[in-house]
């Protein structure tokens, strides 16, 4: 483990990943300080004006919106759109900050849940084998017969808009990889003498899987999970971009990019006039995913026994 950590910190690529990740964790933790919420639901992006057109960075909150907050007795601690506003006056900076929390929430919850389902299915299939293995693996095949994005899009459309629906859809079609990987590892590990010894001692099957097999086989799954967080966040963002993800005005990077889509070309002769609408949320998504991919990629190289001693 120490060796792994040392490698993670000595490799330039993974070090960059770790730094980026720390940056995002800090943003997520200090979100209420960086961008104090103006409404009761902190994930609702405040609007800086009622204007449809995006406004450039530094745009001050328009008077009628300030009046509205004063009227309902809210103190406006935060009245400047540091990164400009998106279509409809939504404040980009606020969306970026709280969107970080959304991204962590989506990434960690979906990957964790998908991993649990995968581990459960895969380990049971491999350990008990025979017809149970056959049935569970055919079910896995069936779920794998859908392009991930298409399946997630269809299920979200049917369930309706909302972050929870998006997460359900991502979990429902995101567990199969883990099941396959853990099945492969357990199939070879269950022939080992320590498993036979445990069986001979009369240890229950569940305990053998949980206490003996999983700790010895889980590493490849964890690497896969770390690489998958990025994929899940991107897919959620893509769904928002396509217009089936988070509800209107929710602090979500994908939706902010979709706000930007109509403005990216700019007025004739002023290409790039509204660059800030796509630049900031776009760069946040890219860096977030990059962080996880850099870490996951190095982890894979380090923990792959075939590559050991070569790094």
């Amino acid at each position: 483990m120490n060796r792994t950590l040392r490698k993670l910190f000595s490799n330039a690529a993974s070090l960059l990943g770790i730094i980026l990740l720390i940056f995002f964790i800090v943003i997520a933790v200090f979100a209420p300080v960086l961008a104090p919420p103006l409404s009761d639901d902190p994930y609702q992006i405040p609007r800086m004006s009622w204007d449809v057109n995006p406004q450039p960075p530094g745009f001050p909150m328009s008077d009628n919106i300030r009046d509205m907050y004063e009227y309902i007795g809210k103190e406006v601690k935060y009245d400047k759109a540091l990164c400009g506003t998106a279509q409809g006056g939504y404040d980009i900076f606020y969306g970026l900050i709280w969107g970080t929390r959304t991204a962590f929430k989506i990434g960690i919850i979906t990957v964790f849940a998908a991993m649990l389902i995968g581990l459960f299915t895969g380990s049971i299939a491999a350990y008990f084998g025979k017809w149970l293995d056959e049935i569970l693996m055919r079910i896995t095949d069936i779920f794998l017969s859908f392009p991930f994005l298409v399946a997630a899009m269809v299920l979200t459309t049917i369930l309706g808009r909302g972050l929870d629906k998006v997460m359900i859809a991502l979990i429902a079609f995101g567990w199969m990889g883990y099941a396959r990987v853990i099945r492969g590892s357990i199939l070879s590990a269950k022939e080992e003498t320590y498993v036979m010894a445990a069986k001979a001692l009369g240890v229950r099957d569940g305990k053998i899987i949980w206490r003996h097999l999983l700790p010895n086989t889980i590493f490849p799954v964890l690497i896969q999970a770390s690489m998958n967080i990025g994929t899940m966040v991107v897919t959620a963002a893509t769904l928002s971009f396509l217009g089936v993800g988070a509800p209107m005005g929710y602090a979500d990077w994908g939706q902010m990019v979709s706000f930007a889509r109509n403005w990216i070309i700019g007025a004739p002769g002023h290409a790039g006039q509204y660059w800030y609408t796509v630049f900031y949320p776009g760069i946040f998504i890219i860096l977030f995913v990059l962080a996880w991919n850099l870490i996951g990629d190095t982890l894979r190289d380090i923990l792959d026994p075939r590559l050991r001693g070569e790094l």
Partner: protein
Amino acid sequence: MIAYIIRRLLLLPVILIGVTFLIFCMFSLLSPMERLATYVNDPSTLKNPQAAERLINKYHLDDPFPLGYIQWVKRISKLDLGWSQAANQPVWDAICQRFPATLELVIYSVVPVILVGIWLGVISAVHHNDVIDQSIRVTAIVGWSLPTFIFGLLVLFIFYGMLGWLPPGRLSTWAQDIVYTGTNFHSYTHLVTIDALLNGNIPIFVDALRHLCAPIITLSYVYWAFLLRIARSSMLDTLRKDYIRTARAKGVDEHTVIHKHAERNALIPVVTIAGMLIIGMLGGVVVAETVFTYPGLGFWAATAAQQLDYGSVIAFALLFALLMVVGNLVVDVSYAFIDPRVRLE
């Protein structure tokens, strides 16, 4: 070999039943009224309770689960997929009309992906851990981290917004007039670039190509990054094998070792992945087509999803799942041809 193919074919019905059943399960999450809406082209019918009741019975939307499934499969096997509100025409017609556009896009995207991906992957592995490898790897990870929709918007911004070279859509207005309504233009394949060449109409060909370039760039960048990673790790693996060491010890020159001895073996798994990649692109086309308003299946499905046009969305899922099942079958069988070990499993 034949035994393997037969075994693989026997699995096909199981998968098909499973896939349709899973889609039907998703479909059943909707209420009978919502499901009925996918069959009628006139929303006012739904407001009339008696008519709605009659139609729900007619389409067996209220049947118990297994019966409903059987009725539904019967209907889709007759290609009766309902009415697409997003396209304002029957779902099956909508699919037929849009399929060639998507096919054209995928065909043109696959070739650069496979060639560039494999080539860079091999180079990266040969130069393992030095500057070339590191820079190729970083480019690939960046590509892999770059969400298709953001990269697409970037391409749109640069090549359309700033340079004005690659417009969105499939054809310019003047070209649409010639292709869709003109009398002298015959659509043989419905792939506009090929039809234009067959008709000898070079301006149309150029126009179609200009519209295709941007979505092709978008689709391929993300996927070559993926293929590169696979090619690299497979090549790295092979280069460590004993027979490579033997070849080097014998004094075989490095070029032959890499291109004759290692590459051929290393690329076997890459072939499978490449097959899966083409199938995986089916997801990417939704995004690429939406960004560039390219009138294919993906754009239609995304529009349908936004409008809660469930019938179109379900049909789209069904179609893409079937394409994927067939694609997987082809990949598995061709893999057995390439790698004899697979047959013995």
